[in-house]
Protein backbone atom coordinates (compact mmCIF):
# COMPACT_ATOMS: atom_id res chain seq x y z
CA UNK A 1 0.00 0.00 0.00
CA UNK A 2 2.25 2.73 -1.29
CA UNK A 3 -0.32 4.69 -3.21
CA UNK A 4 -3.04 5.69 -0.82
CA UNK A 5 -5.11 8.36 0.76
CA UNK A 6 -5.66 6.65 4.11
CA UNK A 7 -4.02 8.73 6.80
CA UNK A 8 -3.96 11.63 4.35
CA UNK A 9 -6.88 13.40 6.03
CA UNK A 10 -8.34 16.63 4.80
CA UNK A 11 -8.95 19.06 7.60
CA UNK A 12 -10.32 21.97 5.61
CA UNK A 13 -12.59 22.50 2.62
CA UNK A 14 -9.67 24.15 0.94
CA UNK A 15 -7.56 21.02 1.14
CA UNK A 16 -10.54 18.96 0.13
CA UNK A 17 -10.97 20.82 -3.16
CA UNK A 18 -7.33 20.99 -4.19
CA UNK A 19 -6.32 19.77 -7.60
CA UNK A 20 -4.35 16.72 -6.48
CA UNK A 21 -5.87 15.46 -3.23
CA UNK A 22 -3.39 12.60 -2.92
CA UNK A 23 0.15 13.37 -1.82
CA UNK A 24 1.79 11.05 -4.32
CA UNK A 25 -0.08 12.72 -7.20
CA UNK A 26 1.08 16.09 -5.96
CA UNK A 27 4.68 14.93 -5.88
CA UNK A 28 4.41 13.45 -9.36
CA UNK A 29 2.95 16.71 -10.63
CA UNK A 30 5.69 18.89 -9.19
CA UNK A 31 8.39 16.52 -10.41
CA UNK A 32 6.91 16.73 -13.89
CA UNK A 33 6.87 20.53 -13.69
CA UNK A 34 10.52 20.67 -12.64
CA UNK A 35 11.54 18.34 -15.45
CA UNK A 36 9.44 20.22 -18.02
CA UNK A 37 10.79 23.65 -17.05
CA UNK A 38 14.31 22.95 -15.81
CA UNK A 39 15.51 19.86 -17.64
CA UNK A 40 13.81 19.56 -21.02
CA UNK A 41 14.86 23.05 -22.29
CA UNK A 42 18.50 22.02 -21.98
CA UNK A 43 18.18 18.73 -23.80
CA UNK A 44 15.54 19.51 -26.41
CA UNK A 45 16.49 19.47 -30.09
CA UNK A 46 14.58 20.30 -33.24
CA UNK A 47 13.44 16.72 -33.79
CA UNK A 48 11.86 16.38 -30.34
CA UNK A 49 10.35 19.84 -30.50
CA UNK A 50 8.79 19.36 -33.92
CA UNK A 51 7.81 15.71 -33.76
CA UNK A 52 6.53 15.48 -30.21
CA UNK A 53 6.66 18.34 -27.76
CA UNK A 54 5.31 21.33 -29.68
CA UNK A 55 2.37 19.50 -31.24
CA UNK A 56 1.59 17.88 -27.89
CA UNK A 57 1.54 21.20 -26.03
CA UNK A 58 -0.42 23.02 -28.72
CA UNK A 59 -2.99 20.29 -29.26
CA UNK A 60 -3.40 19.96 -25.51
CA UNK A 61 -4.55 23.60 -25.45
CA UNK A 62 -7.00 22.94 -28.28
CA UNK A 63 -8.26 19.78 -26.56
CA UNK A 64 -8.74 21.68 -23.31
CA UNK A 65 -10.74 24.26 -25.24
CA UNK A 66 -12.99 21.73 -26.96
CA UNK A 67 -13.35 19.77 -23.72
CA UNK A 68 -14.65 22.87 -21.96
CA UNK A 69 -17.31 23.28 -24.63
CA UNK A 70 -18.19 19.65 -25.31
CA UNK A 71 -17.07 17.71 -22.24
CA UNK A 72 -18.09 20.21 -19.60
CA UNK A 73 -20.87 22.27 -21.18
CA UNK A 74 -22.25 19.51 -23.40
CA UNK A 75 -22.27 21.54 -26.63
CA UNK A 76 -20.98 19.44 -29.52
CA UNK A 77 -18.72 21.27 -31.96
CA UNK A 78 -17.19 20.26 -35.27
CA UNK A 79 -15.85 23.75 -35.88
CA UNK A 80 -12.57 23.45 -33.98
CA UNK A 81 -10.43 23.65 -37.11
CA UNK A 82 -12.23 26.78 -38.26
CA UNK A 83 -11.79 28.45 -34.88
CA UNK A 84 -8.10 27.54 -34.86
CA UNK A 85 -7.89 29.24 -38.24
CA UNK A 86 -9.44 32.37 -36.74
CA UNK A 87 -6.69 32.36 -34.10
CA UNK A 88 -4.00 31.80 -36.71
CA UNK A 89 -5.16 34.52 -39.07
CA UNK A 90 -5.79 36.97 -36.23
CA UNK A 91 -2.26 36.34 -34.98
CA UNK A 92 -0.89 36.79 -38.50
CA UNK A 93 -2.68 40.10 -39.01
CA UNK A 94 -1.55 41.34 -35.59
CA UNK A 95 2.05 40.20 -36.08
CA UNK A 96 2.32 41.98 -39.41
CA UNK A 97 0.46 45.11 -38.29
CA UNK A 98 2.25 45.55 -34.94
CA UNK A 99 5.74 44.07 -35.41
CA UNK A 100 7.19 45.66 -32.25
CA UNK A 101 4.70 44.15 -29.83
CA UNK A 102 5.93 41.00 -28.01
CA UNK A 103 4.54 37.83 -29.55
CA UNK A 104 2.71 36.88 -26.35
CA UNK A 105 0.27 39.73 -26.88
CA UNK A 106 -0.37 38.76 -30.47
CA UNK A 107 -1.24 35.26 -29.35
CA UNK A 108 -3.46 36.32 -26.46
CA UNK A 109 -5.33 38.94 -28.49
CA UNK A 110 -5.78 36.37 -31.26
CA UNK A 111 -7.39 34.18 -28.59
CA UNK A 112 -9.68 37.01 -27.53
CA UNK A 113 -10.74 37.64 -31.13
CA UNK A 114 -11.49 33.94 -31.55
CA UNK A 115 -13.55 34.10 -28.35
CA UNK A 116 -15.75 36.79 -29.90
CA UNK A 117 -16.12 34.84 -33.15
CA UNK A 118 -16.90 31.69 -31.14
CA UNK A 119 -19.62 33.48 -29.23
CA UNK A 120 -21.21 34.65 -32.45
CA UNK A 121 -21.24 31.11 -33.83
CA UNK A 122 -22.43 29.87 -30.44
CA UNK A 123 -25.63 31.87 -30.60
CA UNK A 124 -27.57 29.13 -32.43
CA UNK A 125 -26.86 26.80 -29.47
CA UNK A 126 -29.60 28.62 -27.60
CA UNK A 127 -32.15 27.21 -30.01
CA UNK A 128 -30.64 24.01 -31.34
CA UNK A 129 -29.06 21.06 -29.62
CA UNK A 130 -27.05 17.91 -30.20
CA UNK A 131 -26.90 16.75 -33.78
CA UNK A 132 -28.29 19.98 -35.21
CA UNK A 133 -25.77 22.06 -33.31
CA UNK A 134 -23.01 19.81 -34.62
CA UNK A 135 -24.22 20.50 -38.15
CA UNK A 136 -24.32 24.24 -37.48
CA UNK A 137 -20.73 24.21 -36.22
CA UNK A 138 -19.76 22.15 -39.25
CA UNK A 139 -21.17 24.96 -41.38
CA UNK A 140 -19.02 27.40 -39.40
CA UNK A 141 -15.99 25.23 -40.12
CA UNK A 142 -16.50 25.34 -43.87
CA UNK A 143 -17.49 28.99 -43.90
CA UNK A 144 -14.38 30.08 -42.00
CA UNK A 145 -11.98 28.09 -44.19
CA UNK A 146 -13.69 29.47 -47.28
CA UNK A 147 -13.46 33.02 -45.88
CA UNK A 148 -9.72 32.84 -45.20
CA UNK A 149 -9.16 31.38 -48.65
CA UNK A 150 -11.25 33.86 -50.57
CA UNK A 151 -10.64 37.22 -48.91
CA UNK A 152 -7.06 38.33 -49.77
CA UNK A 153 -6.97 40.87 -46.92
CA UNK A 154 -6.58 38.00 -44.48
CA UNK A 155 -3.37 36.74 -46.11
CA UNK A 156 -2.09 40.26 -46.87
CA UNK A 157 -2.59 39.71 -50.63
CA UNK A 158 0.30 37.25 -50.79
CA UNK A 159 0.57 35.57 -54.19
CA UNK A 160 0.57 32.04 -52.77
CA UNK A 161 -2.48 32.62 -50.60
CA UNK A 162 -0.48 31.27 -47.67
CA UNK A 163 0.48 33.07 -44.50
CA UNK A 164 4.07 33.09 -43.24
CA UNK A 165 5.10 33.89 -39.68
CA UNK A 166 7.72 36.66 -39.57
CA UNK A 167 10.29 36.67 -36.80
CA UNK A 168 8.80 37.93 -33.54
CA UNK A 169 10.42 37.92 -30.13
CA UNK A 170 9.78 37.68 -26.44
CA UNK A 171 12.39 39.00 -23.99
CA UNK A 172 14.79 39.29 -26.90
CA UNK A 173 14.55 35.63 -27.93
CA UNK A 174 13.05 34.79 -31.30
CA UNK A 175 9.89 32.72 -30.82
CA UNK A 176 8.72 32.64 -34.42
CA UNK A 177 10.50 32.68 -37.77
CA UNK A 178 13.36 30.58 -39.11
CA UNK A 179 15.83 31.66 -36.44
CA UNK A 180 13.71 30.63 -33.45
CA UNK A 181 15.46 27.97 -31.34
CA UNK A 182 13.80 24.80 -30.15
CA UNK A 183 14.13 25.64 -26.41
CA UNK A 184 12.60 29.12 -26.93
CA UNK A 185 9.65 27.81 -28.91
CA UNK A 186 9.16 24.97 -26.45
CA UNK A 187 9.25 27.18 -23.37
CA UNK A 188 6.88 29.70 -24.92
CA UNK A 189 4.32 26.97 -25.64
CA UNK A 190 4.90 25.27 -22.31
CA UNK A 191 4.21 28.44 -20.33
CA UNK A 192 0.97 29.04 -22.23
CA UNK A 193 -0.14 25.43 -21.89
CA UNK A 194 0.49 25.30 -18.15
CA UNK A 195 -1.18 28.67 -17.57
CA UNK A 196 -4.23 27.75 -19.64
CA UNK A 197 -4.56 24.32 -18.04
CA UNK A 198 -4.48 25.99 -14.65
CA UNK A 199 -7.20 28.41 -15.76
CA UNK A 200 -9.29 25.56 -17.17
CA UNK A 201 -8.95 23.72 -13.89
CA UNK A 202 -9.98 26.81 -11.90
CA UNK A 203 -12.98 27.52 -14.07
CA UNK A 204 -14.22 23.96 -13.97
CA UNK A 205 -13.93 23.51 -10.20
CA UNK A 206 -15.98 26.58 -9.28
CA UNK A 207 -19.37 28.05 -9.99
CA UNK A 208 -18.81 28.66 -13.73
CA UNK A 209 -17.91 24.99 -14.20
CA UNK A 210 -20.99 23.88 -12.29
CA UNK A 211 -23.16 26.07 -14.50
CA UNK A 212 -21.65 24.44 -17.58
CA UNK A 213 -22.08 20.93 -16.23
CA UNK A 214 -25.63 21.69 -15.11
CA UNK A 215 -26.51 22.79 -18.65
CA UNK A 216 -24.82 19.65 -19.99
CA UNK A 217 -26.58 17.22 -17.66
CA UNK A 218 -30.08 18.71 -17.73
CA UNK A 219 -30.77 22.14 -19.10
CA UNK A 220 -34.29 22.34 -17.64
CA UNK A 221 -33.05 21.64 -14.13
CA UNK A 222 -30.23 24.13 -14.67
CA UNK A 223 -32.79 26.81 -15.37
CA UNK A 224 -34.83 26.12 -12.26
CA UNK A 225 -31.79 26.57 -10.05
CA UNK A 226 -31.26 29.98 -11.61
CA UNK A 227 -28.77 29.34 -14.42
CA UNK A 228 -29.32 31.61 -17.39
CA UNK A 229 -28.77 29.29 -20.37
CA UNK A 230 -27.74 32.20 -22.58
CA UNK A 231 -24.83 33.34 -20.44
CA UNK A 232 -23.82 29.80 -19.47
CA UNK A 233 -23.61 28.58 -23.06
CA UNK A 234 -22.04 31.72 -24.45
CA UNK A 235 -19.41 31.79 -21.71
CA UNK A 236 -18.53 28.20 -22.59
CA UNK A 237 -18.23 29.14 -26.27
CA UNK A 238 -16.12 32.18 -25.39
CA UNK A 239 -13.68 30.41 -23.07
CA UNK A 240 -13.45 27.38 -25.33
CA UNK A 241 -12.82 29.50 -28.41
CA UNK A 242 -10.19 31.53 -26.58
CA UNK A 243 -8.23 28.34 -25.91
CA UNK A 244 -8.74 27.07 -29.44
CA UNK A 245 -7.75 30.44 -30.89
CA UNK A 246 -4.52 30.46 -28.89
CA UNK A 247 -3.82 26.92 -30.07
CA UNK A 248 -4.42 27.97 -33.68
CA UNK A 249 -2.13 30.98 -33.32
CA UNK A 250 0.64 28.80 -31.84
CA UNK A 251 0.20 26.08 -34.41
CA UNK A 252 0.65 28.61 -37.19
CA UNK A 253 3.21 31.00 -35.74
CA UNK A 254 5.38 28.83 -33.51
CA UNK A 255 4.99 25.32 -34.87
CA UNK A 256 4.33 25.35 -38.63
CA UNK A 257 5.57 28.83 -39.54
CA UNK A 258 3.68 28.80 -42.82
CA UNK A 259 0.08 27.78 -43.33
CA UNK A 260 -2.41 27.10 -46.07
CA UNK A 261 -5.78 27.30 -44.41
CA UNK A 262 -7.56 24.29 -45.88
CA UNK A 263 -4.59 22.06 -45.23
CA UNK A 264 -3.81 23.12 -41.66
CA UNK A 265 -7.27 23.94 -40.38
CA UNK A 266 -9.63 21.78 -42.41
CA UNK A 267 -12.33 19.49 -41.10
CA UNK A 268 -9.69 16.82 -40.32
CA UNK A 269 -8.37 19.11 -37.61
CA UNK A 270 -11.84 19.38 -36.06
CA UNK A 271 -12.05 15.61 -35.94
CA UNK A 272 -8.50 15.23 -34.66
CA UNK A 273 -9.24 17.40 -31.62
CA UNK A 274 -12.60 15.72 -31.11
CA UNK A 275 -10.91 12.30 -31.13
CA UNK A 276 -8.40 13.57 -28.59
CA UNK A 277 -11.08 14.42 -26.07
CA UNK A 278 -13.09 11.26 -26.73
CA UNK A 279 -10.06 9.03 -26.28
CA UNK A 280 -8.62 11.13 -23.46
CA UNK A 281 -11.86 11.64 -21.60
CA UNK A 282 -14.79 14.03 -21.90
CA UNK A 283 -15.06 16.47 -19.04
CA UNK A 284 -11.52 15.94 -17.79
CA UNK A 285 -8.50 18.25 -17.77
CA UNK A 286 -6.15 15.31 -17.46
CA UNK A 287 -8.02 13.59 -20.27
CA UNK A 288 -7.34 16.51 -22.60
CA UNK A 289 -3.62 16.01 -22.08
CA UNK A 290 -3.85 12.23 -22.29
CA UNK A 291 -5.79 12.45 -25.56
CA UNK A 292 -3.39 14.97 -27.08
CA UNK A 293 -0.39 12.87 -26.03
CA UNK A 294 -1.96 9.74 -27.48
CA UNK A 295 -2.83 11.26 -30.85
CA UNK A 296 0.58 12.92 -31.18
CA UNK A 297 2.68 10.00 -29.97
CA UNK A 298 0.89 7.16 -31.71
CA UNK A 299 1.89 8.13 -35.29
CA UNK A 300 5.47 8.70 -34.14
CA UNK A 301 5.58 5.33 -32.43
CA UNK A 302 3.96 3.51 -35.34
CA UNK A 303 6.41 5.07 -37.73
CA UNK A 304 9.36 4.08 -35.58
CA UNK A 305 8.16 0.56 -34.98
CA UNK A 306 6.37 -0.40 -38.20
CA UNK A 307 8.22 1.59 -40.85
CA UNK A 308 11.71 1.83 -39.40
CA UNK A 309 11.57 -1.39 -37.40
CA UNK A 310 9.58 -3.84 -39.53
CA UNK A 311 10.12 -2.15 -42.86
CA UNK A 312 6.42 -1.54 -43.61
CA UNK A 313 5.51 0.91 -46.35
CA UNK A 314 4.68 4.37 -44.99
CA UNK A 315 1.16 4.44 -46.40
CA UNK A 316 0.44 1.00 -44.98
CA UNK A 317 1.47 2.23 -41.53
CA UNK A 318 -0.75 5.28 -42.04
CA UNK A 319 -3.75 3.07 -42.84
CA UNK A 320 -2.97 0.96 -39.82
CA UNK A 321 -3.04 4.14 -37.74
CA UNK A 322 -6.50 5.04 -39.08
CA UNK A 323 -7.75 1.62 -38.09
CA UNK A 324 -6.39 1.89 -34.58
CA UNK A 325 -7.92 5.33 -34.04
CA UNK A 326 -11.24 4.23 -35.51
CA UNK A 327 -11.41 1.15 -33.33
CA UNK A 328 -10.45 3.12 -30.24
CA UNK A 329 -13.10 5.76 -30.88
CA UNK A 330 -15.75 3.06 -31.07
CA UNK A 331 -14.43 1.27 -27.99
CA UNK A 332 -14.33 4.45 -25.92
CA UNK A 333 -17.67 5.79 -27.12
CA UNK A 334 -19.41 2.51 -26.39
CA UNK A 335 -17.63 1.25 -23.29
CA UNK A 336 -15.85 4.11 -21.61
CA UNK A 337 -17.09 7.60 -22.47
CA UNK A 338 -14.73 9.05 -19.88
CA UNK A 339 -11.77 7.78 -21.82
CA UNK A 340 -8.19 7.25 -20.78
CA UNK A 341 -8.73 9.55 -17.81
CA UNK A 342 -11.29 7.14 -16.39
CA UNK A 343 -9.09 4.11 -17.03
CA UNK A 344 -6.32 5.90 -15.19
CA UNK A 345 -8.69 6.68 -12.31
CA UNK A 346 -9.82 3.06 -12.10
CA UNK A 347 -6.24 1.86 -12.14
CA UNK A 348 -5.46 4.20 -9.29
CA UNK A 349 -8.48 3.02 -7.34
CA UNK A 350 -7.23 -0.55 -7.68
CA UNK A 351 -3.77 0.55 -6.68
CA UNK A 352 -5.14 2.31 -3.64
CA UNK A 353 -6.67 -0.91 -2.37
CA UNK A 354 -3.70 -3.05 -3.32
CA UNK A 355 -2.70 -5.50 -1.93
CA UNK A 356 -5.93 -5.85 0.06
CA UNK A 357 -8.75 -5.61 -2.45
CA UNK A 358 -11.50 -5.69 0.18
Amino acid at each position, binding site marked *: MIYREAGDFKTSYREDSQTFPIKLDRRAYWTLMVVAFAVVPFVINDYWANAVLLPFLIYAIAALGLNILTGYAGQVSLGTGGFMAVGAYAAYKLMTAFPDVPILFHVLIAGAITALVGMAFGLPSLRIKGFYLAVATLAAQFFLVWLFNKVPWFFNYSASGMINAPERTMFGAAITGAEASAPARYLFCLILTVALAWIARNLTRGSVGRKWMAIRDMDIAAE*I*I*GVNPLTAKLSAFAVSSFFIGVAGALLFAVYLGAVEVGEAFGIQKSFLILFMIIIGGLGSIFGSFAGAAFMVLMPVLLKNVLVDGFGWATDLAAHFQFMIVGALIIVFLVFEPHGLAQLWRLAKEKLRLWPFPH
Partner: protein
Amino acid sequence: MTDMNAESYVTEDGRTIGGVIMEMKNITLRFGGVTAIQDISFDIREGEIRAIIGPNGAGKSSMLNVISGFYVPQEGEVWFRGRRRAKMKPYQVARQGIARTFQNIALFEGMSVLDNVMTGRLTRMKTGLAAQALWFGRAEREEIEHREKVEKIIDFLEIQAIRKTPVGRLPYGLKKRVELARALAAEPALLLLDEPMAGMNVEEKEDMSRFILDVNDEFGTTICLIEHDMGVVMDLSDRVVVMDYGKKIGDGTPDEVRNNQAVIDAYLGVAHD
Protein backbone atom coordinates in the same frame (compact mmCIF):
# COMPACT_ATOMS: atom_id res chain seq x y z
CA MET B 1 -59.57 28.62 17.76
CA THR B 2 -56.97 30.46 15.70
CA ASP B 3 -58.04 33.30 13.46
CA MET B 4 -56.54 32.41 10.11
CA ASN B 5 -57.67 35.64 8.48
CA ALA B 6 -55.44 37.72 10.72
CA GLU B 7 -52.25 39.29 9.38
CA SER B 8 -50.33 36.62 11.21
CA TYR B 9 -51.10 33.88 13.70
CA VAL B 10 -49.41 31.22 15.77
CA THR B 11 -50.16 27.56 15.08
CA GLU B 12 -50.90 25.00 17.77
CA ASP B 13 -47.33 23.73 17.57
CA GLY B 14 -46.01 27.24 18.05
CA ARG B 15 -44.90 28.26 14.53
CA THR B 16 -45.70 31.76 13.36
CA ILE B 17 -47.59 32.02 10.07
CA GLY B 18 -47.22 35.41 8.41
CA GLY B 19 -49.05 37.25 5.67
CA VAL B 20 -49.55 36.16 2.07
CA ILE B 21 -46.27 35.63 0.21
CA MET B 22 -47.64 34.13 -3.01
CA GLU B 23 -51.03 34.66 -4.53
CA MET B 24 -52.50 33.00 -7.59
CA LYS B 25 -55.46 34.90 -9.03
CA ASN B 26 -57.88 33.27 -11.46
CA ILE B 27 -55.26 31.13 -13.18
CA THR B 28 -56.32 29.36 -16.35
CA LEU B 29 -53.84 27.18 -18.26
CA ARG B 30 -54.65 25.36 -21.47
CA PHE B 31 -52.67 22.94 -23.63
CA GLY B 32 -54.40 23.05 -26.98
CA GLY B 33 -57.83 21.65 -26.22
CA VAL B 34 -56.94 20.44 -22.71
CA THR B 35 -57.66 22.80 -19.86
CA ALA B 36 -55.15 21.77 -17.21
CA ILE B 37 -56.08 24.57 -14.79
CA GLN B 38 -59.40 26.36 -14.82
CA ASP B 39 -59.86 29.68 -13.05
CA ILE B 40 -58.06 28.74 -9.83
CA SER B 41 -57.22 31.20 -7.08
CA PHE B 42 -55.40 30.49 -3.84
CA ASP B 43 -52.66 31.95 -1.71
CA ILE B 44 -49.64 30.76 0.23
CA ARG B 45 -48.75 32.42 3.51
CA GLU B 46 -45.30 33.01 4.86
CA GLY B 47 -44.04 30.12 7.01
CA GLU B 48 -46.82 27.69 6.27
CA ILE B 49 -46.87 24.26 4.70
CA ARG B 50 -49.43 24.41 1.94
CA ALA B 51 -50.46 21.21 0.22
CA ILE B 52 -52.04 20.68 -3.17
CA ILE B 53 -53.85 17.39 -3.50
CA GLY B 54 -56.04 15.75 -6.09
CA PRO B 55 -56.24 12.68 -8.29
CA ASN B 56 -53.82 12.02 -11.15
CA GLY B 57 -54.15 14.50 -13.98
CA ALA B 58 -55.93 17.04 -11.77
CA GLY B 59 -53.45 19.74 -12.76
CA LYS B 60 -51.30 19.86 -9.63
CA SER B 61 -47.92 19.67 -11.36
CA SER B 62 -49.13 22.20 -13.90
CA MET B 63 -49.89 24.58 -11.04
CA LEU B 64 -46.38 24.18 -9.64
CA ASN B 65 -45.01 24.78 -13.12
CA VAL B 66 -46.96 28.01 -13.33
CA ILE B 67 -45.53 29.13 -9.99
CA SER B 68 -41.98 28.30 -11.03
CA GLY B 69 -42.33 29.99 -14.40
CA PHE B 70 -42.25 26.94 -16.67
CA TYR B 71 -45.75 27.47 -17.92
CA VAL B 72 -47.26 30.86 -18.61
CA PRO B 73 -51.00 30.78 -17.91
CA GLN B 74 -53.34 32.12 -20.59
CA GLU B 75 -55.33 33.98 -17.96
CA GLY B 76 -54.79 35.11 -14.42
CA GLU B 77 -52.15 36.80 -12.34
CA VAL B 78 -49.29 35.57 -10.20
CA TRP B 79 -48.38 37.77 -7.25
CA PHE B 80 -45.21 37.23 -5.27
CA ARG B 81 -44.31 39.35 -2.24
CA GLY B 82 -46.93 41.93 -3.06
CA ARG B 83 -45.87 42.41 -6.67
CA ARG B 84 -47.46 41.11 -9.81
CA ARG B 85 -45.12 38.93 -11.81
CA ALA B 86 -44.28 40.17 -15.24
CA LYS B 87 -43.42 37.61 -17.91
CA MET B 88 -40.50 35.72 -16.45
CA LYS B 89 -38.13 32.93 -17.36
CA PRO B 90 -37.71 30.05 -14.87
CA TYR B 91 -34.18 31.16 -13.98
CA GLN B 92 -35.48 34.60 -13.11
CA VAL B 93 -38.13 33.06 -10.88
CA ALA B 94 -35.40 31.04 -9.18
CA ARG B 95 -33.44 34.21 -8.52
CA GLN B 96 -36.47 35.66 -6.75
CA GLY B 97 -36.08 32.96 -4.13
CA ILE B 98 -38.34 30.17 -5.38
CA ALA B 99 -36.78 26.71 -5.45
CA ARG B 100 -38.35 23.40 -6.36
CA THR B 101 -38.04 19.67 -6.81
CA PHE B 102 -39.60 17.65 -9.62
CA GLN B 103 -42.00 14.75 -9.65
CA ASN B 104 -39.49 12.78 -11.77
CA ILE B 105 -36.24 13.94 -10.16
CA ALA B 106 -34.15 16.39 -12.18
CA LEU B 107 -30.64 16.03 -10.83
CA PHE B 108 -27.34 16.45 -12.65
CA GLU B 109 -26.43 12.81 -13.09
CA GLY B 110 -22.85 13.37 -14.16
CA MET B 111 -21.95 15.35 -11.05
CA SER B 112 -21.28 14.29 -7.46
CA VAL B 113 -23.81 14.80 -4.68
CA LEU B 114 -21.70 17.65 -3.35
CA ASP B 115 -21.55 19.40 -6.72
CA ASN B 116 -25.28 18.94 -7.21
CA VAL B 117 -26.02 20.57 -3.88
CA MET B 118 -23.46 23.30 -4.60
CA THR B 119 -25.39 24.19 -7.76
CA GLY B 120 -28.20 25.21 -5.45
CA ARG B 121 -26.04 28.16 -4.40
CA LEU B 122 -25.28 29.37 -7.91
CA THR B 123 -27.71 32.27 -7.70
CA ARG B 124 -25.78 33.52 -4.69
CA MET B 125 -22.26 33.13 -6.08
CA LYS B 126 -21.15 36.39 -7.59
CA THR B 127 -17.47 36.02 -8.53
CA GLY B 128 -16.94 36.85 -12.18
CA LEU B 129 -15.22 34.77 -14.82
CA ALA B 130 -11.85 36.52 -14.54
CA ALA B 131 -11.64 36.14 -10.75
CA GLN B 132 -12.57 32.49 -11.07
CA ALA B 133 -9.92 31.89 -13.70
CA LEU B 134 -7.33 33.07 -11.18
CA TRP B 135 -9.02 31.20 -8.31
CA PHE B 136 -6.82 32.28 -5.40
CA GLY B 137 -8.46 35.10 -3.49
CA ARG B 138 -12.07 35.92 -4.22
CA ALA B 139 -13.14 32.75 -6.00
CA GLU B 140 -11.61 30.41 -3.45
CA ARG B 141 -13.01 32.39 -0.51
CA GLU B 142 -16.47 32.36 -2.05
CA GLU B 143 -16.24 28.64 -2.77
CA ILE B 144 -15.31 27.85 0.84
CA GLU B 145 -17.97 30.13 2.25
CA HIS B 146 -20.68 28.42 0.21
CA ARG B 147 -19.22 25.00 0.85
CA GLU B 148 -19.73 25.59 4.57
CA LYS B 149 -23.41 26.41 4.02
CA VAL B 150 -23.84 23.37 1.83
CA GLU B 151 -22.15 21.07 4.34
CA LYS B 152 -24.72 22.17 6.94
CA ILE B 153 -27.51 21.13 4.63
CA ILE B 154 -25.76 17.85 3.86
CA ASP B 155 -25.53 17.18 7.60
CA PHE B 156 -29.13 18.23 8.10
CA LEU B 157 -30.40 15.78 5.49
CA GLU B 158 -28.01 13.08 6.66
CA ILE B 159 -26.29 12.49 3.33
CA GLN B 160 -22.68 13.03 4.50
CA ALA B 161 -21.64 9.52 3.56
CA ILE B 162 -22.53 9.91 -0.11
CA ARG B 163 -21.07 13.41 -0.54
CA LYS B 164 -18.59 12.42 -3.24
CA THR B 165 -20.73 9.78 -4.95
CA PRO B 166 -21.86 10.50 -8.51
CA VAL B 167 -25.62 11.05 -8.38
CA GLY B 168 -26.23 8.56 -11.19
CA ARG B 169 -25.20 5.73 -8.86
CA LEU B 170 -27.67 6.53 -6.07
CA PRO B 171 -30.92 4.68 -5.37
CA TYR B 172 -34.20 6.49 -5.95
CA GLY B 173 -34.94 7.45 -2.36
CA LEU B 174 -31.56 9.09 -1.87
CA LYS B 175 -31.85 10.95 -5.15
CA LYS B 176 -35.06 12.52 -3.87
CA ARG B 177 -33.20 13.62 -0.78
CA VAL B 178 -30.32 15.07 -2.78
CA GLU B 179 -32.79 17.00 -4.90
CA LEU B 180 -34.31 18.42 -1.73
CA ALA B 181 -30.81 19.33 -0.54
CA ARG B 182 -30.12 21.20 -3.76
CA ALA B 183 -33.36 23.16 -3.43
CA LEU B 184 -32.63 23.93 0.22
CA ALA B 185 -29.11 25.10 -0.61
CA ALA B 186 -30.70 28.05 -2.37
CA GLU B 187 -32.18 29.13 0.99
CA PRO B 188 -35.45 29.78 -0.83
CA ALA B 189 -38.24 32.00 0.42
CA LEU B 190 -40.67 29.54 -1.13
CA LEU B 191 -39.96 25.86 -1.61
CA LEU B 192 -42.06 23.86 -4.07
CA LEU B 193 -42.07 20.07 -3.74
CA ASP B 194 -43.75 17.97 -6.39
CA GLU B 195 -44.62 14.60 -4.82
CA PRO B 196 -41.53 14.42 -2.60
CA MET B 197 -42.57 11.01 -1.30
CA ALA B 198 -43.75 9.35 -4.47
CA GLY B 199 -42.37 5.85 -4.91
CA MET B 200 -40.87 5.67 -1.44
CA ASN B 201 -41.35 2.96 1.15
CA VAL B 202 -42.93 3.71 4.53
CA GLU B 203 -39.64 4.29 6.27
CA GLU B 204 -38.36 6.66 3.58
CA LYS B 205 -41.67 8.51 3.69
CA GLU B 206 -41.34 8.99 7.42
CA ASP B 207 -37.81 10.32 6.99
CA MET B 208 -38.92 12.69 4.27
CA SER B 209 -41.91 13.95 6.31
CA ARG B 210 -39.59 14.64 9.20
CA PHE B 211 -37.19 16.55 6.93
CA ILE B 212 -40.00 18.65 5.50
CA LEU B 213 -41.30 19.52 8.95
CA ASP B 214 -37.79 20.28 10.18
CA VAL B 215 -37.03 22.52 7.22
CA ASN B 216 -40.19 24.46 7.85
CA ASP B 217 -39.59 24.63 11.56
CA GLU B 218 -35.85 25.36 11.71
CA PHE B 219 -35.43 27.61 8.68
CA GLY B 220 -38.98 28.99 8.63
CA THR B 221 -39.16 28.09 4.92
CA THR B 222 -42.56 28.44 3.29
CA ILE B 223 -43.41 25.17 1.57
CA CYS B 224 -45.94 24.29 -1.07
CA LEU B 225 -46.09 20.57 -1.73
CA ILE B 226 -48.00 18.13 -3.84
CA GLU B 227 -48.68 14.78 -2.29
CA HIS B 228 -50.78 11.75 -3.03
CA ASP B 229 -50.75 10.08 0.35
CA MET B 230 -53.72 11.60 2.24
CA GLY B 231 -52.42 10.59 5.64
CA VAL B 232 -49.12 12.35 5.03
CA VAL B 233 -50.82 15.49 3.76
CA MET B 234 -53.15 15.74 6.73
CA ASP B 235 -50.22 15.36 9.14
CA LEU B 236 -47.91 17.78 7.42
CA SER B 237 -49.86 20.68 6.10
CA ASP B 238 -51.41 23.79 7.59
CA ARG B 239 -53.78 24.30 4.69
CA VAL B 240 -54.78 22.22 1.69
CA VAL B 241 -55.96 23.06 -1.83
CA VAL B 242 -57.92 20.26 -3.46
CA MET B 243 -57.95 20.04 -7.26
CA ASP B 244 -59.97 17.84 -9.57
CA TYR B 245 -60.07 18.01 -13.37
CA GLY B 246 -58.31 21.37 -13.33
CA LYS B 247 -60.79 22.95 -10.90
CA LYS B 248 -60.40 23.87 -7.27
CA ILE B 249 -62.96 21.96 -5.25
CA GLY B 250 -61.74 22.64 -1.75
CA ASP B 251 -59.43 24.90 0.23
CA GLY B 252 -58.86 25.02 3.96
CA THR B 253 -57.33 23.30 6.95
CA PRO B 254 -56.95 19.52 6.76
CA ASP B 255 -60.04 19.15 8.97
CA GLU B 256 -62.15 21.46 6.85
CA VAL B 257 -61.08 19.69 3.68
CA ARG B 258 -61.71 16.27 5.16
CA ASN B 259 -65.28 17.21 5.96
CA ASN B 260 -66.02 19.03 2.70
CA GLN B 261 -68.70 17.06 0.81
CA ALA B 262 -67.43 17.96 -2.66
CA VAL B 263 -63.96 16.76 -1.71
CA ILE B 264 -65.28 13.54 -0.21
CA ASP B 265 -67.25 12.85 -3.37
CA ALA B 266 -64.58 13.74 -5.86
CA TYR B 267 -61.40 12.64 -4.22
CA LEU B 268 -61.59 10.94 -0.88
CA GLY B 269 -64.50 8.81 -2.03
CA VAL B 270 -62.46 7.61 -4.98
CA ALA B 271 -59.35 7.14 -2.89
CA HIS B 272 -61.21 5.03 -0.35
CA ASP B 273 -62.75 2.70 -2.89
